């Protein structure tokens, strides 16, 4: 797709009269192709018109930029002609004079006669020849809008920008004008961006509909491609079999945004109503944080050992666990305030997977990415199993299923392993027997022959390899490089009532993550983690050397696995959440949520992440809103998750259903009131 105009990471901040700031748009990335018709849709106040003004160059972005034809947009110009919401015709000029003003100014080099002809052509194009000598005040709203469109088209802009062009018109006039606009755009092939709040209008006219989330800090929530054939015709479009699916997608998005807004309002009311703790030099908030030992928790260890979490705000109380199940129970019961969990846990808690009731989990940050490896008992190496293909061959001839251990069903390692096996033609449901084990017990189970192999963090795998028991068949780099592995999870109400403490904790973990990622700190990190309080002396082999695959091969990259900070690693990414949801549906654990936008927006708290990054003094960077590819080559587009899901091998038929979302616990539970 050749981009005519590229919106690159645009954020727009307006100063408020009181001295504050209003962040209208946040991290907008969008590429619009030549000849494309794109609509911007969203609730009022979501920054649609702000974005249009940025495209026009009428305002300049606070950060980020807009590139048109390879040049940055810095000022308004006739190559991006705007049709304003209230037409903006000059009332003291006739229709013809209004159009001529544009033509005479922009196309100065044309001879007078040609300019005149251009004016007349465009008058004819919108069917206003008869009204050419009348003044705007003598015209109806629809006619004025046509004049505004004629004026815009007369100067042949590269990009036509329409700001709710038909909002003020009656239904009949609107329908006619939409039809006319569509014909004109098809004839001229002009690239168009239109702001609208009319779902049918967006579908009729657009190639893509960009849906914006609620402001402030509006982002692109979803992009819907409208594959209806052109040339379009209103009635034919409405009868198209895809039409109502697309329409309900748009309406669903808007409804979910409305509910999210209501929820936010309810929360801020609850916060206002909650008893205010005496605000005198408050004692630091104690935060009980649960974790399972592993290299993943390096940021926690560093943050505590080096005092990176502001001691005036938070006292961090780490609580180690041996099994995920116990940790989750304590988190839900309120015995833990936050936990470092698998990346899938916030969603599985929010959905209530495994017959639990939905729990309002949120995640403000990703703690680590990568760091997993699959190892098999050495006997498999002797059988010649060296990669996915040979494993598939062996599994297919072997009578009994492969026995693989995971720490818990539904955690990230489980999803990765299943995805990888399925991509090699191994049905994870039939050809594998899954055993849920504490990571600490996996090596013993391998020795006893209870399992053939396990997927775990590099620390555990390295130990098994070191002990001569196992070899590495695959690392997560061969499944999904830079997948989210551990995230911070807490309840929505904890995030609401202890926001500052949570942000301080996140900021500390973020700074610690940055420290961990620095290769120069490797020795210090090893020493630190080798303390008995954390991983003990066994941490050294995992960190200090190159990763030993146990096959004679060695990984070339010392820093192969865990990623704590670099490359925007700490962002909670809704797109990754959407992928996790496809996998939950794929393995039949839940239906695919029709209200996923709402669910993801509730769980993935970018606002908290940004505030924490800011508190930590780190740049607020965001993953680009683009499809990402897994190692099997399948590209995942968060805007078309069902299409992705349908193409996956061994996927259970997707059941799309609106899932009940956890009730917001508006009043703080006893354990969180201090």
């Amino acid at each position: 797709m050749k981009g005519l105009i590229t919106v690159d990471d645009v954020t727009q901040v307006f100063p408020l009269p009181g001295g504050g700031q209003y962040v209208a748009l946040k991290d907008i990335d969008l590429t619009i192709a030549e000849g494309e018709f794109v609509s911007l849709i969203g609730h009022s106040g979501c920054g649609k018109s702000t974005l249009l003004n940025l495209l026009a160059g009428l305002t300049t972005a606070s950060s980020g930029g807009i590139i048109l034809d390879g040049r940055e947009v810095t000022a308004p110009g006739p190559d991006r002609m705007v049709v304003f919401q209230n037409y903006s015709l000059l009332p003291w000029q006739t229709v013809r004079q209004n159009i001529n003003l544009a033509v005479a100014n922009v196309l100065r080099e044309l001879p007078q006669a040609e300019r005149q002809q251009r004016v007349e052509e465009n008058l004819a194009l919108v069917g206003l020849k008869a009204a050419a000598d009348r003044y705007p005040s003598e015209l109806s709203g629809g006619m004025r809008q046509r004049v505004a469109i004629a004026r815009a088209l007369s100067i042949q802009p590269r990009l036509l920008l329409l700001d709710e062009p038909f909002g003020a018109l009656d239904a009949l006039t609107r329908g006619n004008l939409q039809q006319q606009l569509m014909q004109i755009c098809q004839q001229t092939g002009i690239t168009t961006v239109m702001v609208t709040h009319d779902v049918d209008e967006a579908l009729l006219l657009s190639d893509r509909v960009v849906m914006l989330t609620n402001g402030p800090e509006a982002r692109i929530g979803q992009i819907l491609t409208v594959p209806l054939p052109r040339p379009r015709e209103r009635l034919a479009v409405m009868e198209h079999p895809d039409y109502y699916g697309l329409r309900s997608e748009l309406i669903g998005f808007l409804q979910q945004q409305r509910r999210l807004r209501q929820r936010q309002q309810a929360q801020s009311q609850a916060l206002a109503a909650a008893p205010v703790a005496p605000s005198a030099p408050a004692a630091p908030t104690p935060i009980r944080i649960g974790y399972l030992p592993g290299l993943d928790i390096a940021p926690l260890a560093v943050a505590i050992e080096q005092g990176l979490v502001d001691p005036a705000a938070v006292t961090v109380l780490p609580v180690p666990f041996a099994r995920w199940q116990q940790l989750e129970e304590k988190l839900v019961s309120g015995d833990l305030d936050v936990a470092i969990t698998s990346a899938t846990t916030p969603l599985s808690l929010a959905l209530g997977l495994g017959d639990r009731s939905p729990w309002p989990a949120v995640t403000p940050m990703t703690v680590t990415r990568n760091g997993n490896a699959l190892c098999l008992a050495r006997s498999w190496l002797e059988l010649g199993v060296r990669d996915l293909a040979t494993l598939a061959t062996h599994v297919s001839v072997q009578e009994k299923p492969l026995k693989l251990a995971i720490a818990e069903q539904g955690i990230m390692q489980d999803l990765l392993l299943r995805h990888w096996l399925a991509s090699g033609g191994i049905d994870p449901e039939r050809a594998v027997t899954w055993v849920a084990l504490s990571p600490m017990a996996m090596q013993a189970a391998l020795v006893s022959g209870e399992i053939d192999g396990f997927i775990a963090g590099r620390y555990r795998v390295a130990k098994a390899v070191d002990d001569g028991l196992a070899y590495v068949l695959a690392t997560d780099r061969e499944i999904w490089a830079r997948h989210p592995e551990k995230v911070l999870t807490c309840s929505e109400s904890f995030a609401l009532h202890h926001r500052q403490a949570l942000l301080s904790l996140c900021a500390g973990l973020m700074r610690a993550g940055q420290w961990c990622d620095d290769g120069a700190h490797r020795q210090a990190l090893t020493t630190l983690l080798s303390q008995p309080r954390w991983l003990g002396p066994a941490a050294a082999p995992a960190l200090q050397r190159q990763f030993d695959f146990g096959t004679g091969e060695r990984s070339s990259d010392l820093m192969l696995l865990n990623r704590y900070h670099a490359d925007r690693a700490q962002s909670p990414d809704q797109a990754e959440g959407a992928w996790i949801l496809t996998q939950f549906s794929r393995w039949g654990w839940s239906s695919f949520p029709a209200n996923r936008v709402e669910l993801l927006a509730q769980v993935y708290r970018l606002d908290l992440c940004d505030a924490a990054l800011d508190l930590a003094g780190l740049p607020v960077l965001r993953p680009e809103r683009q499809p990402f590819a897994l190692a099997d080559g399948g590209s995942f587009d968060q805007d078309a998750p069902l299409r992705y899901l349908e193409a996956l091998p061994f996927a259970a038929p997707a059941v799309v259903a609106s899932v009940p979302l956890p009730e917001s616990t508006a009043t703080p539970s006893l354990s969180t009131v201090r």
Partner: protein
Amino acid sequence: MTTAVAPSSRSRRSRGQSRRLALRRQILPPVVCIGLTLLLWQLLSGLNSEGFPGPIQVIAQTWDPYIIKPFYDEGGTSKGLGIQIFISLQRVAVGYSLAAVIGIAAGLAIGLNDFLRRGFDPLIQVLRTVPPLAWLPISLLLLQQADSAAIFVIFITAVWPIVINTAVGIREIPQDYTNVARVLRLRKRSYLRDILLPATAPYVFTGLRISVGLAWLAIVAAEMLKADGGIGFFIWDAYNAGGDSSTSQIILAIVVVGLVGLILDRLVGVVGERVSGGRR
């Protein structure tokens, strides 16, 4: 400002009927009220026949030559009312034109330049409240000549509303029009001609209309103090003469001054309406 109400209540009634209705609505009330006022005045003046003349007396005493021969000229300062008014109007024309030209130019500059606006605003706010006659001594000292001094007083009185309104008009140009200009990248000249001037015109004419009233106010006062000829001089002259008909002459002159002021106001109003258009 406008007291005339357009006959907007034109309904299904016959034309004759509606015309009679309009007549009754518009002509009748002022005729009755003014008639009653004159009557009251006449009655009050009758109580004290020595002092203040009633309306009938005023007309009788000024009928010849002031009412029927407005343009008589016996040389010197003994001239008809029409000529006196004409002399005053000439002065106003010169002073007011100067005020209009300089006021609009200054208003443009101040409206377009934020620095100038902030810089001059306090000065303008102070000077515009100075009463016209306070300027007279300074202008006499400066210009040494009664005629020029009167013109200067008119200028300095009339210029402020024009400056202020023009500047406000420029700042109040709707964002829509400025956006159009920015998107089309209008050249300076085109911006001035096609957007700035037409959009500001209503404000400018509001200023001009306020100013013409002030100018007329100032000229009468200035002429009373220091001038030869002009309607203000006529009033002061009649007072100094102290003859039998002096009071009547003064009253007649006041009525004429009022009428001319009204006509000037309406004239500027009509021109403004024509220029800035009833099209919006």
